């Protein structure tokens, strides 16, 4: 590149930068434009059909039993419900999930509620169906540490399961992939779609308080939430770096450090990245693109009142802290999304926003743990 072309190039870059900045500026300027640019908020539709695993009553019954059955883990200590406890918002209530015995997990346990609508599961979208998510959780060394072949034989040792698998799938013996299907079908019944917000959007204008209504306007306008939390799900199912602060747990807890390094090692990062590992790099583990470091999938916001603490590392205990975080324009990270800017919300506006967020939750969904159907000695 000679000097002349260098200058031309720099001029071009400068022009592009001005364009980009003014585009961002324009976005701030008009709430109306903001609303038009993103998929509208809407009530939740019916749970999407899954033609390769249609919902039946028999599958729901089987999947519910399996969801609570500890024999789906390596040492029969941990069921899905151990970390997705209906009494804890279908998460585990901890900032970072407790994980399998002898280990600890490295991310916040996400709610099962409305996972049926998601096309990307886990904090960095590592799985794309509830069936494959269940597999990852059962076999993950920090989660279930289960061996599919052993689990399959455990299920075959339970006459009640043999009967239910036959009823649900027409098979003579339980299989592991079918167990995952049944669990997924059960999870597709753990849905809330009549939160006050949904009722409001379906025409009940009294379903939201005035404060919540003002919060909804802020959500789509001044607070800019809709840039990522949009559509019926209130998630673009895309990935963003918002600069979530580090959770001091990882500075202080030896077991968390093991979990963090293990994930780096197991996900195949370079030695340099492994040696420097001090935080969850999110989407980067999947793509290995530097610009994806620290990006996480936008979580949906239904049921949010029950699912504290918040963020992938559970660093915020309350919704107040979350709103405050966004009001300051998010955290401090060189790769932080330019969508995040300080919002200058007043105290009243923050309260209104909180009212709106709470209107996304609806009734608590409680499913009581059924007894585990027992093993039997098998006849010849």
């Amino acid at each position, binding site marked *: 590149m000679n000097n002349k072309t260098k200058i031309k190039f720099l001029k071009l870059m400068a022009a592009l930068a001005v364009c980009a900045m003014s585009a961002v500026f324009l976005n701030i300027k008009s709430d109306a434009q903001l609303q038009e640019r993103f998929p509208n908020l809407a009530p939740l539709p019916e749970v999407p059909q899954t033609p390769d695993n249609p919902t039946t009553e028999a599958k729901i019954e089987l999947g519910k039993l399996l969801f609570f059955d500890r024999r789906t883990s*390596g040492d029969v200590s941990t069921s899905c419900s151990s970390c997705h406890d209906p009494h804890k918002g279908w998460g585990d209530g901890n900032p970072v999930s407790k994980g399998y015995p*002898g280990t600890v997990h490295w991310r916040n346990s996400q709610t099962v509620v409305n996972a049926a609508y998601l096309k990307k599961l886990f904090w960095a979208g590592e799985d794309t169906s509830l069936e494959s998510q269940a597999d990852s959780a059962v076999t993950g060394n920090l989660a279930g540490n289960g061996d599919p072949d*052993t689990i399959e034989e455990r299920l075959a040792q339970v006459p009640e399961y043999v009967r239910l698998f036959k009823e649900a799938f027409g098979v003579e013996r339980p299989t592991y992939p079918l167990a995952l299907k049944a669990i997924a079908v059960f999870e597709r019944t753990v849905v809330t779609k009549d939160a006050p917000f949904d009722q409001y959007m379906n025409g009940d204008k009294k379903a939201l308080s005035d404060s919540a209504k003002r919060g909804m306007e802020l959500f789509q306008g001044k607070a800019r939430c809709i840039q990522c939390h949009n559509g019926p799900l209130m998630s673009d199912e895309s990935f963003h770096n918002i600069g979530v602060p580090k959770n001091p747990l990882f500075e202080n807890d030896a077991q968390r450090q093991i979990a963090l390094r293990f994930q780096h090692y197991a996900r195949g990062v370079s030695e340099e990245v492994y040696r*420097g590992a001090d935080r969850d790099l999110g989407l980067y583990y999947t793509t290995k693109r530097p610009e994806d470091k620290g990006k996480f999938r936008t979580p949906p916001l239904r049921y949010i009142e029950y699912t504290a603490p918040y963020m992938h590392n559970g660093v915020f205990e309350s919704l107040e802290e979350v709103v405050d975080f966004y009001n300051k324009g998010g955290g401090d990270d060189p790769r932080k999304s330019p969508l995040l800017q300080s919002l200058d919300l007043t105290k009243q506006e923050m309260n209104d926003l909180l009212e709106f967020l709470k209107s996304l939750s609806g009734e608590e969904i409680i499913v009581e743990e059924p007894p585990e159907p027992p093993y039997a000695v098998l006849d*010849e």
Partner: protein
Amino acid sequence: MSKFHSKHLFLSVLIVFLTGMNVYAQDPPDLQPLPDFKEVDPQKAELGKILFFDEKLSGDNSLSCAICHDPSNFFTDKETMGFGYPGSLYFRNTPTVVNAHLSKYVYWDGRLPASDLPTLVRDHISEANFMNADGRLVLERLRQVPEYQQQFEDIFGGDPSYGRTLEVLTAFLKSLTSQNVPLDNYLKGDENALTEDAKAGLALFKGKANCIQCHYGPMLSDGGFHSLGVPENQDIFKEPERHITFRRFFKVFGVSEYANLREDWGRYAVTKEDEDKGKFRTPTLREVAKTPPYMHNGMLATLDEVIEFYNQGGGAHPNKDPLLKPLGLTEEEKQQLKAFLESLSGDNFSIKTPRIPGYQKRTLGQN
């Protein structure tokens, strides 16, 4: 190829052939003392010993090697069949690890060669029904223990790795070799090393009782596989957790009958040859007096029961080895044979449970 070379090659082939003939000519086979003990790197063996006792090597931090291979039980668990990972029970007897490195094969079905001990160790750590741990997770746990980090640095000049972990455990296993065994001393010329009963037992062993047909050489084992017709241990099928492990094992080994199988097919799982059904590895007899109960499924509780089993010509099985015939041993002969078997034990090992070092937090980002 030059004329000289082809002639040379011919001679080599001839020599190899004749030497081979010579081995066959050693009929009946005889007993030999253990080869001289090869010192292992004491630093590696010492670190391996600590890791042998460390539960961080199991998936849920509940089991160490020493739980099933308990030094105070001569590196066995004394059970008829092993227990294994929490939530599961095993379907075969836990052998001692003493002298394991001198065997030809390991496991009752010989599914791994003993020459590859690191793989044997790895198999135990990762196998779902043994320790069920991911090697990468084990490694990160070790790296969280400053003492381990330092010891690996001292020995290898670098971080703990999974391969190095297997290597030090292997060094410890190799240090567990019988020493000062009466039979060996006798074979090396010490006439007083065996009692008169044991000497009579040795004669029976090589003669009337004909144990030597399969139990010969320095390990008192042919390294081969035989069916003796040991009765099936029905606990496998009466205890759900054992039956589960049993089915899972044969399924994973590709035995299509696994779901309804009611017999431990042993070697068959490895070879898929019908003639190998019910065959198990000839175990070494070294240290046999210290490792009850006996047989692949622990069905024989004492050496007396074992001797009586053979005296009756073994059990019943379609593949039973024709070498087994009723022996007609007198009570005195049985006791002499037992005295000989007891002369196969060397000095005890004084292995104390070491202090297991714990996790310490590290400086985040300096891994």
